[in-house]
């Protein structure tokens, strides 16, 4: 049982999530990808904390990460609903307002 092993698993989770975030068109699915990335992040952070510096402080960081996940979900859904209301779409492709 080594740190590297856990980190590789976390990296795999992160990259799977990244693939989703990059490839999905529907806002909800993109958010799922983001959640998966954060999932990998939580695993990696927990492992690093546990293996390298097992003090409660690191656990607090993880709790903050979990809180950020929920905040991200909430804001994401709020924006998705807003876009859906205004434009009748839930595709990221339709929200190209930032195009330079």
């Amino acid at each position, binding site marked *: 049982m080594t740190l590297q092993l856990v980190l590789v698993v976390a990296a795999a989770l992160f990259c799977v999530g990244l693939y989703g975030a990059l490839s999905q068109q529907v806002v909800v699915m993109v958010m799922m990808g983001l*959640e998966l990335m954060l999932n990998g992040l939580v695993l990696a952070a927990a492992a690093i904390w546990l293996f390298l510096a097992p003090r409660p402080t690191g656990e607090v960081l993880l709790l903050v990460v979990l809180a950020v996940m929920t905040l991200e979900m909430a804001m994401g859904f709020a924006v998705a609903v807003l876009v859906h209301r205004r434009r009748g779409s839930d595709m990221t492709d339709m929200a190209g307002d930032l195009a330079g």
Partner: protein
Amino acid sequence: MPPSLPARARGSAVIVVFLLLAAVSVVTGALVFVVDSMARATYALACSFVAVALALLTFGLTYLGVITILMMVMEMAIMAVFMIMFMGMNPALMPMDMVHGKRAALAVSVALFALLVVGIVVAPWPGAAGSASTASDIAALGHTLMGSKMLVMMSVSPIMFATIVGGVVLASGRTRYDRFGDDLDHPAQDPTPGGVGR
């Protein structure tokens, strides 16, 4: 000298269990973007989260694991609601494939994964800086939370509350300004009158 786990988390049984859970979490994570319907994708994501949370539990991170399970199950339920709301269809039955730039996304992800694996393997990880007895984990965490990290936890809750309010404001189609006018002094104008039938 490889970094070590707490005593409880050593041993081949733990490794086997971890590898199993890891495989479950990665595979279900991948399934999220493979399956046809959003409902299945949601369940797969939930599975992935739960598997990771269980892995945390095997490491002895009881509090974190439990919290993660609770949060993620809740979150997936909310996601399902949103999917039904947006799609307006039975998500379990309709096949769908809404992707763009699949190949590029795959390439980026694989490249990043390769990079990360190389980094993980090559990096000179330091040894363990002592080992905490996980028996008093939760108590220690509690003390930390109620002590030196009090500010963090106290600021998390108003932020969350503000986020919820902001999200509702963003997401609601008509606010009280739409209903009562700019100075909030008109009688309410609703497309369908609510209340008790007045």
